[in-house]
């Protein structure tokens, strides 16, 4: 059952990687605003003048 050690190790590495990502997200202000992003995605960002694009 030695295989359990690399598997545990790997799972922990992945978890730590995610933890690092979480800490980065927190520090860099990704979680500062917990509302605006949900509304922002509803707006499209096409240019003012109508060209090769629509809604």
């Amino acid at each position, binding site marked *: 059952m030695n295989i359990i050690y690399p598997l545990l190790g790997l799972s922990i590495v992945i978890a730590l990687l995610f933890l690092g990502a979480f800490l980065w997200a927190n520090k*860099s202000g990704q979680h500062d605003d917990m509302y605006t992003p949900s509304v922002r*995605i509803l707006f*499209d960002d096409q240019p003012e003048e109508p060209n090769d694009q629509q809604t």
Partner: protein
Amino acid sequence: MTEKFYYDNKTVRNFAIATVVWGIVGMTVGLLVAFQLFKPAMNLGTQYTTFGRVRPLHTNAVIFAFVGNAIFMGVYYSLQRLLKARMFSDVLSKIHFWGWQLIIVATAITLPLGFTTSHEYAEMEWPIDIAITLIWVVFGINMFGTIFKRREKHMYVAIWFYIATFITVAVLHIVNSIELPISWFKSYYVYAGVQDALVQWWYGHNAVAFFLTTPYLGMMYYFLPKMANRPVYSYKLSILHFWSLIFIYIWAGPHHLLYTSLPAWVQSLSTVFSVMLIAPSWGGMINGLLTLRGAWDKVRQDPRLKFMVVGITAYGMATFEGPMLALKQINAIAHYTDWIVAHVHVGALGWNGFLTFAILYWIVPRIYNTTLYSVKLASFHFWIGTLGIIFYAVPLYFAGFTQGLMWKEFTPEGLLKYPNFLETLLQIIPMYMMRALGGTLYLTGVIVMTYNLVKTMAAGKLVADEAAEATPLPAVYVAQGSDKKWHRILERKPLLFLGLSLVVILIGGMVEMMPTFTVKSNIPTISSVKPYTPLELQGRDLYIREGCVNCHSQMIRPFRSETERYGEYSKAGEFVYDHPFLWGSKRTGPDLQREGGKYGNAWHYNHLFDPQAMSPGSIMPPYEWLIDQKLDTTTTRSKITAMRSLGVPYETGYEQMANAALEKQAESIALDLRQNNIKIKSDREIIAIVAYLQRLGTDIKAK
């Protein structure tokens, strides 16, 4: 100061078409295997279309071809818009698209030919495994490259789901693909027995988590608000359940091995994590459904939202059922039955399928600058699809309970009430027929959708490059306070570097470490357990080629109902030479762990030649080609050598004598068959597979 740029819609369109095409292929193959389960003649009489070889084709096609392409379609569409940036590189997008299609074609050719590793949902042989790794890295570079050149500082929650998908699938795939090649299309896993089983289900479970779940949650968080034109119910909840989901999911894999020879503490640990998973899973479901609060009038009119609602509900049901199935008491009945097949199809048809359809109906008109050809047809698709799921799942649940309980029923005298396995199977054949009907309905809906989408595309014109405008981020982000250093270091290249180096380290590290970890513990703990003879080894590889493991388990759980029926329960020490393990996950036929010596060679010969003659009503297909085809003995030498380097104690130099030993054993079996009036040459494949079947479980068999 705004910048003008263009979104790449062409790649999105290509992935959309691939999704539809492979969806039809994968589901048609699924239907083919469903029909074979009550009408074996539906194998079309060839080895290439027989259940054992085609069932993996179905699972891989719907997971990696249908769902895989749908993920890329959704990611390429939403990522660009969420980050306000075109995909990092058009060349990489092209390589990604065509590379993935080539992998699918290679899989569709090799699996029916019998080139399989036998690991469920990872049956592709090693060259394809390498190709998958490379293309996955291409996808990663393209995604992270886009993230780094984004014009929107905040990374919307969907992107986090995509990142988690990329990283975890990379790790899972690599660890589960450490194989020792012996030729272009044959390899042995370096892991054996219990260890191999643990790796496979660590992979298998997390593939469900990070291929079928996280990318779809990400897509749900983008497309559902867009479709309903309202923000997600709680953005805070979405962040919270994302982080908790990815931290908990990775520990639940061993719940696929409850009551097996896996150490009990590993089983219990996985149960605990499985139950914990209900919280983050339902966080996602609740957040999705509540997004529609006050907008149910839209659901009534818009079939896309209908698809979303049923899809998210199916997700909620499947993620509640999963933890329940991970409880030992329930697992004891459900495992190996059609209950599990019903469970995964609620997820696959409901969650993955319906979300994919909704997104297709939403994206295609948009990138073709038109409206959907027919909302009515889409509505029809929704209803026939829902009916299809019901007709699929309900009969299979019923079949699962019925058979699971029949296997365990005793008479008052203490004997098995249904000692003949076949009796429990014949009971549920009508359910298999209804399931095939459900599948037919579902596929009909997909074909109607295809017509609808083709008409939509014909009515519009692809906007290959869609113009957009956004303000770029400051070239150097000015951080406040203590953030200063970390920002510069982490936000730009290093993250990409980190991801890539992880992949490289994994490949290198695994190749070096795994043999050490696995070989050491391959020292047998049961002295009577011996390596397979060369003929048995060849027979075992035929067993793998024919996909017998898809219907027959080799794992007797420690229940009286199983030891009465099959014999002594399985011990971990019995599998130390099994590269790969062949425990199986479904008993369409009986367990074969103690098959050795149960019947004579002649019985096995006749049974493989014509199963119905020996067991009337059996749904096992005939394997006549094993009688016609000569056993390829040129591989014996390299197989023995490969096994030895994996820790199987064949003596040095044994590979030289292996074929002589093989011929001797084959001759003795052929002689025995001749004495039973069966004329057969000793060089046929059937001799090898009979030798393997007769060996099964005999090492520690109680007389």
